[in-house]
């Protein structure tokens, strides 16, 4: 167990990170992510009002659809990344990172005093991820198998209302399930009764999201990085790029128009030695051009991978760089995200 954002979290269960990781890629992994923040935001014009805080396009979301976006500060820096679900025209469901949740909710409440923010601190959140997640969950809750990726729906189970999202942070198909805290353990045990389901700890959660090319807040993105530097331009629609209307829009639009001075890139190492967060990135002359923000061994690929920020001149796919580990240069190439193909369920 390790302390994480004020919670005691298991890095790994007895099987270990490698086994847990590969189990999630081949069957179904169960993650306790109850430390994450959940809230409803409701009121008149909630969609337009919420769009003043994030660059994501909430207005174009269909009812029951989910978007990945970021809370930005006035300089276009990322305060947190999050998922927003459009429940109706006047109600959103928000899921934010554990380490940021108190400041996120305070920020939202301060910025949008006309809206009602209901923080769901008595609901647990568990994620079921992997190619068999749908088969497992649909045995308990028929119909979940039909939900497309990034959609949400409520289901009743033994008299308990579950908020189910077909989403996750592993690159696999799967679900995130919000369950009242007193029913969480029994619901988790029900899932674990299926032999295809195993507990997965924080360690494998990190290696899975790294393979999927997804950012870990506070490491790969933070208040000093804009979404464009963070290679998250895909999360900003054409309309929002053009209209702006979110914090730091001027700088974000400048980065979109002219290119950001640096960019988050994927790095595939040629050798076996991993490069971890903090390793410097050098060009072929030895000049330092960036820094690794996440890195490690990719169990699915059986080789090390990393992501980090480099000067835009060194961000093109295929650029050969060196990652400096223990004073030695480890050869690496800039590659596209994700490192491992994602397997989201796009629809029946």
């Amino acid at each position, binding site marked *: 167990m390790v302390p994480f954002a004020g919670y005691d979290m298991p*890095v*790994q269960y007895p099987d*270990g*990170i*490698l*086994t847990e*990781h590969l189990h999630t890629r081949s069957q179904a992994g169960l993650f306790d992510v109850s430390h994450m923040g959940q809230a409803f935001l409701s009121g008149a014009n909630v969609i337009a009002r919420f769009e003043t805080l994030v660059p994501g396009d909430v207005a174009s979301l269909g009812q029951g659809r989910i978007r990945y976006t970021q809370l930005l500060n006035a300089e276009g820096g990322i305060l947190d990344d999050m998922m927003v679900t459009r429940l109706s025209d006047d109600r959103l469901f928000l899921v934010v990172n554990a380490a940021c949740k108190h400041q996120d909710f305070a920020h939202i409440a301060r910025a949008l005093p006309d809206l009602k923010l209901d923080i769901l601190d008595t609901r647990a959140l568990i994620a079921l991820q992997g190619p068999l997640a749908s088969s497992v969950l649909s045995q308990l809750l028929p119909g979940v198998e039909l939900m497309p990726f990034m959609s949400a729906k409520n289901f009743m189970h033994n008299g308990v209302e579950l908020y189910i999202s077909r989403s996750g942070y592993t690159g696999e198909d799967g679900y995130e399930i919000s369950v009242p805290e007193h029913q969480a353990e029994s619901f988790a045990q029900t899932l674990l009764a299926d032999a295809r389901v195993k507990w997965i700890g924080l*360690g494998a959660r990190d*290696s899975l999201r790294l393979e999927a090319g997804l950012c870990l807040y506070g490491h790969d993105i933070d208040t000093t990085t804009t979404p464009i530097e963070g290679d998250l331009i895909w999360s900003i629609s054409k309309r929002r790029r053009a209209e702006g209307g979110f914090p730091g829009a001027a700088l974000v639009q400048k980065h979109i128009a002219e290119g950001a001075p640096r960019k988050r890139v994927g790095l595939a190492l040629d050798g*076996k*030695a*991993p490069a*971890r967060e903090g390793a410097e990135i050098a060009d072929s002359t030895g000049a330092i051009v960036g820094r690794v923000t996440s890195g*490690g*061994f990719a*169990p699915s690929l059986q080789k*090390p991978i990393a992501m980090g920020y480099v000067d835009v001149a060194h961000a093109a796919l295929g650029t050969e760089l060196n990652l400096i580990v*223990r004073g030695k240069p480890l050869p690496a190439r800039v590659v596209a995200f994700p490192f491992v193909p994602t397997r989201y369920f796009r629809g029946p």
Partner: protein
Amino acid sequence: MSETRYTKDHEYIRVEGDVGIVGITDFAQGQLGDVVFVELPQAGKVVAKGAEAAVVESVKAASEVYAPVSGEVVDVNGAIEGQPGLVNEDPAGKGWFLKIKIKDKAELSELMDEAAYQAFVSSCS
């Protein structure tokens, strides 16, 4: 007759004559988790007691392996470079790291014996 001594950093040294076989303990491999990479020194390298002799990386983290005693590295276990998992499976056997020609056997007395190490591990967990 061999004798095994332990460091507070969870290395072991199994003494066979003038040579000590160095690796990490079962407790250490359990704490590290799945080992995915090891970096070994060149044979012939002279190391001082407590100096970095090798590197072991698990999925979780990188750790140094320190020389339990001073001496010259006379052999390294190339098998764990190709199969780092041996360090988890058999840390005291096939998962050894290196052999040191011990410079001064008096340094061994500064290390823990089996009973002292087991007591030390109990206090760690």
